[in-house]
């Protein structure tokens, strides 16, 4: 030991093994590989479980809207599920992203200093509410109280197919599910975008103000461009949650296998809700069919995230990361 500490001993200039660096590199590389492997394994597992059912299917899996997998002539397709899942999620995004960004902007840059942390905390708490509670709330409170609203849409905007309601029943609809989804993903969107809004360096904000920008112009010039990747991530995480949400949607929708653009009418279905509702009664092929639909949901979620990455990466040079 003493010899090591003595100044006469020159440290060797050659490459030395740094065990902690090596361990850290190993761990992080290992975790990366494990994550990739797990994702691949899940996909492979789903495919393997789904294949017998897909082979037995007598209608096109991607474009059919029927769901009779346990018939002697199995018939099942995901068109209605994909339609309901995407439509409810898109409507939820249309509501939740602007509102969530607005709330985030308000808490990060507009709210009075003493009030802002409380508001942020309340929004964060909302993210911790279990989805069954949102589902029950949607069913018990929102559904009976929103009938007037949907009727108003039907009467005044009924010329738009989306708002048209030819059944005059305004419950258990895709629209209702979408509103509940929107409320569920709102805290995710707003909590994450609030964090990125708060991370905008004060120097950029001052630069904009010093050029004579108003508060809103400062947001547009300095805050939004800097926060853009984070805003995209926030929206995508919200979308991911909406696409996969099961119990709240299963509670609210009265499941049908049809493609109906009249979103305020009862009916519709989603991948996740359908799996939850059908699993217990499914036979052999039925289970395989549900797993196959799960595989499609898995791929859609994956594609959404890849698309988000592409959006974020495309202007990487301009991200301010360096």
């Amino acid at each position, binding site marked *: 030991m003493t010899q090591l500490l003595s100044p006469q001993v020159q440290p060797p200039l050659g490459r030395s093994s740094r065990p902690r660096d090596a361990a850290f590199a190993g761990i992080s590389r290992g975790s990366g590989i494990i994550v990739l492997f797990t994702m691949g394994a899940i996909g492979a597992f789903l495919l393997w479980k789904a294949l017998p059912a897909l082979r037995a299917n007598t209608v096109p899996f991607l474009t059919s809207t029927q769901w009779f997998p346990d018939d002697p002539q199995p018939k099942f397709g995901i068109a209605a599920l994909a339609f309901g899942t995407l439509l409810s999620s898109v409507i939820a995004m249309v509501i939740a992203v602007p509102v969530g960004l607005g709330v985030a902007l308000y808490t990060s840059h507009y709210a009075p*200093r003493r009030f802002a942390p409380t508001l942020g905390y309340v929004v964060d708490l909302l993210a911790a509410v279990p989805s069954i509670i949102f589902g029950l709330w949607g069913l018990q409170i929102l559904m009976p109280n929103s009938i007037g609203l949907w009727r108003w849409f039907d009467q005044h905007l009924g010329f738009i197919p989306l708002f048209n309601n030819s059944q005059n029943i305004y419950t258990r609809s895709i629209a209702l599910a979408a509103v509940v989804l929107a409320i569920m993903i709102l805290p995710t969107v707003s909590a994450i975008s609030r964090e990125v809004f708060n991370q905008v*360096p004060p*120097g*950029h904000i*001052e*630069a*904009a*103000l*010093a*050029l*004579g*920008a*108003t508060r809103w*112009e400062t947001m547009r*010039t*300095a805050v939004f*461009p*800097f926060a*853009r990747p984070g805003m995209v991530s926030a929206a995508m995480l919200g979308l991911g949650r909406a696409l996969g949400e099961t119990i709240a949607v299963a509670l609210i929708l009265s499941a049908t296998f049809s493609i109906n653009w009249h979103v305020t009418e009862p009916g519709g279905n989603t991948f996740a809700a359908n799996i939850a509702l059908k699993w217990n009664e499914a036979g052999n092929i039925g289970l395989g069919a549900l797993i196959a639909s799960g595989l499609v949901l898995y791929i859609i979620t994956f594609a959404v995230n890849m698309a988000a990455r592409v959006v974020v990466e495309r*202007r990487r*040079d*301009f*991200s*301010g*990361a*360096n």
Partner: protein
Amino acid sequence: MAKRIDVSDLNVYYGTFLAVEGVNLVVEPRAVTAFIGPSGCGKSTVLRTLNRMHEVTPGARIEGKILLDHENIYGPDIDPVNVRSTIGMVFQKPNPFPTMSIYGNVVAGIKLKKRTKKSELDDVVESSLRGANLWEEVKDRLDRPGSVLSGGQQQRLCIARAIAIQPQVLLMDEPCSALDPISTLAIEELIHELKQQYTIVIVTHNMQQAARVSDTTAFFNIAGTGKPGKLIEMNTTANIFGSPSEKATEDYISGRFG
């Protein structure tokens, strides 16, 4: 283009803390005025009151009057947004917008004010970058992000961005303190040229720099922590560095403290 600034009985507060007390000074047009003094004496604070950037800090406020050619910029019907586009500012740390190209940075201020034709914007970009002695270095990569430039180039980009909106006054808060000596020299030469057109106020902790670039120097000092900073004396730069009338000024410039 250049206007004169007249500060009278200025007290500056952060909340209840009186940071600067009783400042009276005049900034002449088409000249460089330097603020010097030890750290924490309120140079930046006073500078930021001159374009109402001070009040961006929560709880910050002032007492007193600041005239820009006879108009009180703190008057009741004055819009601070207009004050800031009339009195430009360059900060200590170069802060080009990282999400914008070099071109986008230069036109950022103009785009806030009005829609402008591309050809006009092109002209402004060239003249502002020439004005900031940066044109030759970046003319072939105007579409690259501002962050690819060196620190000194970034600071000149910030100067180009500030002069693109043709302000009356240019405020600079230690614009060279994050730069190497060569970039510093480039900025100092630029300040020399800019003063033909603009009223310039520069804060610097570097006394040689104040001596090199300024016509007038204001020396600020602080009696102790928690005490308000004060303007000790203001005179031509030659007089401040040659024959200061206050003992504190002499001590400071001869390096005896601070």
